[in-house]
């Protein structure tokens, strides 16, 4: 299978701070490749280097077969990019934004008409075409940004946290669109900090503190978790986390709302010890039970395994 993106030892420093540290990976043609990690992990910096917006400090990368350092114009013609913050022109109408980006990507004549209609339909913006973009709801803006990024039918589509801030239904709809592009053969490179979105990807790279700490299919990543995970439901979640963090036999503790996930060395021992520890500390809990690891747990586990802490 051909590689849509090839990255080797890619590094970017800002002064003393290394935002991306010798990252290497490949993205296969036609796959949905997810970039998972907390804010500040280096996802956006990596995407900016791959889209020619930021110069790598060292390392190499090829996108759609072109070198991001030496053939940046060819790279830019082959890719679509949707930035983390909405960055279309708010004082242009929907149609004017489409026409602008069509012009900048060289989409003209009959093809312009065809693509324009297609984008308006895909983004369900037909009745909004003469509205100022700044006045649209966020979900509409994001679909328009996606539309403007795919007007020229790019080989590789980079989406940097495309669904941040929108409601779950809009997010689901947005992912249906992403699937559609992948089915048409577009390679989709998408970053997110929503773990459940990562499940939709063919493969995901887990990033933390500038490094990729795991890369595989979502299912395989979950299978790779060896440590048992116990879920403790409690009204005192924040304080329970504090208590369990220092408890013997507990490797990592994470809070998910009213639930606390504890990654432990031995399930049987922990199931006996944790109630005792909590009782001694004076906290009550509703239940304690072993669970199947979610991607959040995968993330925590890999961070633990790489000997680090979570950035952000």
């Amino acid at each position, binding site marked *: 299978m051909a590689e849509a993106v090839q990255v080797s030892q890619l590094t970017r420093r800002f002064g003393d701070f290394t935002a991306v540290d010798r990252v290497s990976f490949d993205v296969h043609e036609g796959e949905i490749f997810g970039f998972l990690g907390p804010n500040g992990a280096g996802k956006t910096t990596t995407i900016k280097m791959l889209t020619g917006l930021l110069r790598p400090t060292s390392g190499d990368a090829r996108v759609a077969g072109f070198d991001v350092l030496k053939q940046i114009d060819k790279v830019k013609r082959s890719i679509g990019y949707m930035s983390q913050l909405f960055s279309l022109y708010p004082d242009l109408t929907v149609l*004017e934004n489409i*026409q*602008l980006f069509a012009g900048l990507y060289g989409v003209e004549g009959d093809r312009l008409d065809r693509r324009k209609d297609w984008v308006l339909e895909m983004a369900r913006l037909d009745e909004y075409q003469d509205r100022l973009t700044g006045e649209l709801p966020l979900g509409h803006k994001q679909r328009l940004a996606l539309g403007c990024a795919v007007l020229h039918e790019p080989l590789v589509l980079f989406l940097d946290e495309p669904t941040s801030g929108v409601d779950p239904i809009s997010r689901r709809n947005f992912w249906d669109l992403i699937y559609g592009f992948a089915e048409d053969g577009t390679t989709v490179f998408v970053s997110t900090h929503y773990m459940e979105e990562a499940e939709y990807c063919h493969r995901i790279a887990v990033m933390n503190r500038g490094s990729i700490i795991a890369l595989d299919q979502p299912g395989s990543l979950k299978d790779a978790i060896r440590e048992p995970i116990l879920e403790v439901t409690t009204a005192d979640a924040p304080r329970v986390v504090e208590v369990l963090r220092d408890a013997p036999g507990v490797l990592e503790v994470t809070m998910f709302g009213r639930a606390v996930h504890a990654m432990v060395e031995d399930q049987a021992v922990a199931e006996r010890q944790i109630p005792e520890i909590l009782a001694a500390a004076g906290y009550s809990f509703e239940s304690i039970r072993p669970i199947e690891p979610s991607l959040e747990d995968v993330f925590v586990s890999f961070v633990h395994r790489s000997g680090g802490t979570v950035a952000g």
Partner: protein
Amino acid sequence: MNPGRLWAMARKEAIQLRRDPRSLGMAFLLPAALLLFFGYAISYDVNNIEMAVLDESNSERSRGLIHAFESSGYFDIVEYPARYEDVDELLQRAKVLAVLVIPPSFDRDLAAGRDAPVQLLLDGSDANSATIAQNYAAAIMIRYSSDVLLRGRRFVLPAQAETRVWYNETLESRNMIVPGLVAVIMSIIAAMLTALTIAREWERGTMEQLAATPVHRLEVVIGKLVPYVGIGLFDVALAIVAGLLIFGVPLRGNILLLTGLTLLFLIGALSFGMFISAAVKSQVLASQIAIQTTYLPAILLSGFMFSISTMPIALQVVTYAVPARYYVSVTKGIFLKGVGPEVLWVQGLAMIIFATVGLTLAIRSFRKELE
């Protein structure tokens, strides 16, 4: 350079401009306001000097002298103080610029053929006007005296200068100011207009999406320039029409030459504003720098207000770096003297250099990479 991408940029910039009241005001209202304000306010002409007369002679001869002042057209007699003590107050309150005091002995002395001095008091705090008033008064007194001496006989000096004023026959300062004003206003407006354009893209974050497209920086800069050049030409045309119709300034030279040189000047000045915008990436800072670097040099060092040839040498050297200097020469030359390329090629060359340097700076300072 790709014409499609350039056109897409130009079109987008024009639409944004049309929807931005602040830019529209700066593009159309500000130049009109500046033109009217400066056109009416700045005048070096001293006419209708307000004057008070204390006539202690109150005779036929003294009234004759007062009439000579009145009918000259230069003096407006607005006050007739009763006593000498009142004269002081009139000058202090700046009610008048000059006071003519005719002593009681005036009529007697003239009749007897003796010296008959009168007193002229001037407010020297406005030295320029006082000097002009003094010269006018002296001329009126000479004329009056010669009439008294010769009693109507013709009086001819053996050697006289036959003075003809060229280019601005009536020596009206408005004729000199309005053409220069067009140049000064465009210097200020042009840089201010474009100072916002690239900084706004950085501040709003739209630069990120733009930078991810294959658009070349040359296409961005020139595409953005196109609508502003259109506005600049429109402003100049408006100023010329206003100069001709409202201020009655003559246009003697070739309007095509004026348009061509204006175009070069606009490209330079607009690019300069864009250079500032791209370099500092902040709208507030960029517009401040644009005003600071264009306003004072355009007014003080362009030859618009002060003649360059009377400046200290060091300052004269500095004026060569002020683009407005060349454009002021162009507008004055074409409006008043009607000169053509045979004279203005120097300015033309300076404009070409200015436009080239401005464009190069703008393009070079524009980075498509983020930091």
